[in-house]
């Protein structure tokens, strides 16, 4: 029955491994929770959760699982007993699936069934799935593991573990929140590929190798050189600027600074565009004409090793993306915006699209270009979790 908690945690996105679970059981055996429910909460958290970004998820799952525990700080006896001698538990195993089904029954039904059951029940009953009693997965009674139901009996008092969990004060740390500069910086550190297999001369003096060779050579000096190990990742960042993107400017400038300060890239190139990439892009976010760079230049000069990140909300007037006649900021040509973007996709195998905005709720016309670009590119929302996924995607060889 307790393993249901394990699967619930995993189901809620906390990657608890079997090792950690065994550690928890070992800790419970040693009584490290101090037989208090609060202690139990902290014990679970410190053994199973390894990052403050996951505390909130854990709190949520913990509440979900234990919310029908009797309101007391003591750990209910049956849990302890079961943990101590699981073999001695009377009757069959709890049917957690059945317990979870209870979640679907609404409150009125529960009350009705409760009265019916009271009528029918003539004896004390603990640990089943139907009658009023303690433990078990029934809808009624206390200390059970049904996610919903009616509490019968049980004392009032401190619900400390629940209070702690229900404060959910680690919500800010959740990785699916949107980001600040430092978090971006951290995320960008993922983009690295150390290699000594780069095409470079053996220039670095290899002390260990020299010593080894010299020793092998009975003490007469034998100098060894090695290729330097360097990060080989080159990044091309293309950012939408102005118009509908103004709303996200703070987020985007944080992203830019994050990338810029992550000074471990071999090369970082940043260009700006408005709405969509056409024949010209700009080196400053204000898109001043004197800072213009022909898009062709990028495609010609930046090799396909560059990992490309496009940042934009992908929302524009459909003709801005799909029709060639659009007068795009001083550059009139017969190539559509989409075609330009496809050229990037063809040239650079490692390309992702980060989107600070969600798909427009109202859909239809407003979502048209979003959908087109979403189909064309690997598009990720601009949150830490998704950014990490995007960066991971960039690192994978296609």
């Amino acid at each position, binding site marked *: 029955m307790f393993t249901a908690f394990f699967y619930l945690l995993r189901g809620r996105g906390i*990657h608890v*491994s079997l*090792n*950690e679970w065994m*550690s928890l059981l*070992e*800790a419970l055996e*040693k*009584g*490290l929770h*101090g037989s208090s429910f609060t*202690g139990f909460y*902290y*014990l679970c*958290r*410190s*053994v199973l*959760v*390894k*990052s*403050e970004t996951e*505390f909130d998820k854990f709190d949520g799952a913990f509440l979900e699982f234990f919310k029908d525990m009797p309101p007391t700080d003591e750990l209910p006896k049956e849990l302890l007993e079961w943990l101590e001698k699981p073999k001695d538990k009377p009757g069959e195993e709890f049917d957690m699936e059945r317990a979870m089904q209870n979640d679907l029954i609404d409150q009125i039904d529960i009350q009705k069934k409760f009265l019916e059951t009271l009528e029918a029940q003539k004896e004390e009953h603990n640990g089943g799935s139907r009658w009023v009693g303690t433990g078990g997965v029934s809808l009624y009674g206390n200390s059970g593991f049904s996610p919903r139901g009616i509490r019968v009996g049980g004392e009032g008092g401190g619900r400390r573990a629940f209070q702690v969990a229900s404060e959910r004060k680690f919500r800010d740390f959740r990785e699916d929140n949107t980001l600040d500069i430092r978090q971006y910086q*951290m995320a960008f*550190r*993922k983009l*690295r590929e150390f290699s000594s297999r780069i095409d470079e001369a053996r220039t670095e003096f290899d002390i260990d190798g020299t*010593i080894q060779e*010299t*020793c092998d050579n009975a*003490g007469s000096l034998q100098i060894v050189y090695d290729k330097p190990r360097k990060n080989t990742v080159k990044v091309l960042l293309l950012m939408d600027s102005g118009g509908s993107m103004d709303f996200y400017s703070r987020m985007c400038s944080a992203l830019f600074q994050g990338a810029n300060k992550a000074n471990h890239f071999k090369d970082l190139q940043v260009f700006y565009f408005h709405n969509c990439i056409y024949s010209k892009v700009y080196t400053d976010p204000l898109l001043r004409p004197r800072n213009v760079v022909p898009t062709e230049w990028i495609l010609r000069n930046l090799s396909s090793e560059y990992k490309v990140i496009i940042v934009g909300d992908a929302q524009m007037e459909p003709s801005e993306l799909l029709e060639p006649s659009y007068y795009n900021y001083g550059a009139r040509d017969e190539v559509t915006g989409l075609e330009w973007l496809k050229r990037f996709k063809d040239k650079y195998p490692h390309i992702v699209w980060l989107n600070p905005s969600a798909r427009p709720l109202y859909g239809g016309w407003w979502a048209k270009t979003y959908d087109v670009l979403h189909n064309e590119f690997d598009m990720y929302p601009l949150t830490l979790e998704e950014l990490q996924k995007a960066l991971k995607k960039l690192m994978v060889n296609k």
Partner: protein
Amino acid sequence: MNMNTAFQGSENYVASAELMRSVNIAIALQKPLLIKGEPGTGKTMLAEAISKSLGKKLIIWNIKSTTKAQDGLYVYDVVQRLYDSQFGNEGVDDIGKYVKMGKLGEAFSADEQVILLIDEIDKADLEFPNDLLWELDKMEFYIPETKETVKAKQRPIVIVTSNAEKELPDAFLRRCIFHYIEFPDADQMKEIIDVHFDNLEEKLLDQVLETFYWIRGVYNLQKKPSTSEVLDWIQALILGGMKPEDIDKKVPFAGVLLKKNEDIDTVKRYLK
């Protein structure tokens, strides 16, 4: 749990109940305790406090960006040996003479249980924690040069701190007990200050705390002041003989609290 071996905080370190719990869980399960938290919340101090409170020796392994896992185990001083051999010094044939224990090796070979602090593990290369998995799990390592296995006589209590500059590998995390030190609230902070200063004027303390938490709440600070800074600040206020009334109006010695010019400007701007 045996009360003699349980950590209860120490006279100049105030540990929250949760922190003490985590420490004791880690000790009982014999797993490394990974401590994270804002800079200045006393992550490093914790190990000292545990060492003092349990009366065990503390061995500190400070991690730098260049530190390799091997450095913590042992160093085989080949150059010295080579050098010695050319002059025919005595004992050259004894390799053991040239094998020097690193901090981890030192902790393993200690006769009594020690506390090993691996400080700021995230400073090292990404692969660093992975290289220590076996050693921290089994508490032993093998020295091929001397064909010796160094095995911990008493499993050391391992405390690992991290500033979250790098993500730690999952395999490493799975072996740790994790604790996140939250920033202390005003009451806890009072307790912490009490431990460090005797007979602090009540009024001064109140003003300090009020101003301090106000500054921490100022939007857009690049680096929020933390516990160690507030302790320095109080010291400065006492030495400077500041009146409690002036503290929240002028924020004297703001440079002690805030380490960036922009932040000082921001705070001064809000003051007016």
